[in-house]
């Protein structure tokens, strides 16, 4: 795949525009990650990158692409910034502070559950038109677990011994996944998950989503101040006999920590 002159890249904190900017960013990335072996895997328009060094430490990056012909016109990138900091020997807090200070973060606008009020956590996921309808059972379970706080809903599709990998290289089974979701929502107690994109290909399913919420409890070393946090999330699943047996879910903890450390810009 090749970039257009007008290709853009969205990350949780940044918005790069134009081929020159992307090429420059890719070069910087290549210099920084050059010592790591990279494996890639493709699921539809999603490419999974896994960086590993000789010691076995590393991190994952999910790249969702929209294409026009042979060109990529836009990318959405979700990376495990906590694991990459550790693997690259960066100080997490220092990097989060620097990222936050270089980002232009505006005051938040609007609510997260527009127009659905008390009905936002219903049984049915609000899916953008055009997503494959076969993704609905999975999306509905995610809707119940994340937006309805009904973690038992995962039992419907997620195997008890699902191989779950989460941010910061966390691993475990369904119980570990539930613990992670609960802990995250516990830090942002009004958090809402919004679906953006979905793929079904063979035994794989993948979802691109957003998580918006307000900082309500100690998180990433920062005391709660009501700051709105806006995260991009990516989940890729493997299905066997209708059950989820593998789940890799990414958000960028570094981008989350960065947002908690800065105030919105002053006009």
């Amino acid at each position, binding site marked *: 795949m090749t970039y257009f002159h007008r290709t853009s890249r969205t990350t949780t904190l940044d918005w790069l*525009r134009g081929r020159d900017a992307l090429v420059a960013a890719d070069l910087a990335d290549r210099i920084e990650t050059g010592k790591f072996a990279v494996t890639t895997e493709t699921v539809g328009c999603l490419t999974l990158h896994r960086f590993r060094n000789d010691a076995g430490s590393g991190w994952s990056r999910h790249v969702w692409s929209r294409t026009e012909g042979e*060109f990529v016109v836009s990318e959405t990138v979700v990376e495990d910034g906590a694991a990459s900091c550790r693997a690259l020997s960066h100080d997490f807090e220092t990097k989060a502070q620097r990222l936050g200070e270089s980002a232009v973060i*505006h005051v*938040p*606008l609007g*609510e997260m559950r527009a127009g659905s009020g008390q009905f936002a956590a219903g049984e049915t996921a609000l899916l953008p038109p055009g997503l494959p309808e076969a993704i609905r059972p999975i999306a509905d379970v995610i809707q119940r677990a994340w937006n309805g706080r009904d973690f038992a809903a995962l039992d419907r599709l997620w195997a008890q011994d699902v191989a779950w990998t989460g941010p910061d290289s966390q691993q475990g089974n369904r119980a570990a996944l539930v613990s992670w979701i609960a802990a995250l929502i516990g830090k942002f107690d009004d958090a809402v998950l919004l679906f953006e994109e979905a793929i079904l290909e063979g035994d794989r399913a993948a979802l691109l989503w957003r998580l918006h919420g307000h900082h309500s409890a100690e998180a990433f070393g920062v005391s709660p101040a009501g700051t709105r946090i806006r995260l991009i999330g990516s989940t890729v699943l493997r299905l066997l006999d209708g059950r989820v047996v593998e789940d890799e879910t990414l958000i960028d903890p570094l981008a989350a920590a960065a947002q908690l450390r800065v105030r919105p810009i*002053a*006009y």
Partner: protein
Amino acid sequence: MTSRSIHGRDIADLLAPQGARRQDLPGFDTDYADIVDYIIRCTHRIWEQKDVGLIATHYAPDIVVHTMTGPVVGIAGVIAGTARTLSAFPDRTLIGEAVIWSDEGDGAYLSSHRITSIATNTGQSELGPATGRRIAFTTIADCLCKANLIVEEWLVRDYSAMALGLGYRPRTIAHGQAEADRAAGPPARWRIEAMEEISAVSSTPFPNGPMPPVTQAEAFAHGYFDRALNHRRFGTVRDVYSPAARWFGPGGRRLFGHGEVTGWMTALIGTFGDLRVRVEHVAAVGDEIAVRWSAAGTHDGGALYGAPSGRPIYILAVTHWRHAHGVIVEETTIFDEIALLRQIEGGL
């Protein structure tokens, strides 16, 4: 014969010789194949190849360029402004993201050209001293083109994103400009007349029926702005936007989904409680729609731009939509927030 879209085409293809004419372009130079080619190629020649003098052969002598800081009349002003910007940002590249055009009849075309500029600030700009920073900002130029000439232009640029990228506070810049305006004399006549024109537009009956489909661009655009903004039916956002809509706006704001897009509309009216909006032009090509609109109101709320000043304001904006599956999936709305703050600070 029609124009070839930029969809699926890289700049190398767009700027390669285009061969025979694809569209009826009476009076245009023979090397322009269609209106998209004209816009992309002459922008590259004038701005990137620095052949600023070509403005003389591509702009009408009596050109009027409408901006939120007032009209610029005549090509001398266009050439001088171009040179000033190039001296402040000499390596500016202009990445054409969309050219949404309409046939205006009699050989004339309206092109709504959305540009992402990447530029390094090595010289004094209208925003302040050189900073050495490289910034990205969006401009939309609505150009009425006839016989190889741009005869009228409506230009909106995201100046607040430029200021923020350069490390300036938009309000500080606007405050200084407003002080200069007040020292220069009474309020600008053009702005008062523009606001009066908008306010004079009659209210429409309360819109209760269904929205026209997004594929009927003209009716959809008029219906949406009237319903959502003039009649404050913000809930229309849920009907016409994807739940995963991406929204890009002034100051480099990036919003996502129904909640935040609705929040922008609410905040706009929460800032200018009596705001009236007038749709001025609609163009549509394929899955893209361009809407030029203007608005007038009173700064009587503090939602977006600080404590209410009670001052009247005028907005000139262009919105670009991309739609899919019957809903808007992406929006870019650009207006000059520094010019808006300048009015709030008592200028123009």
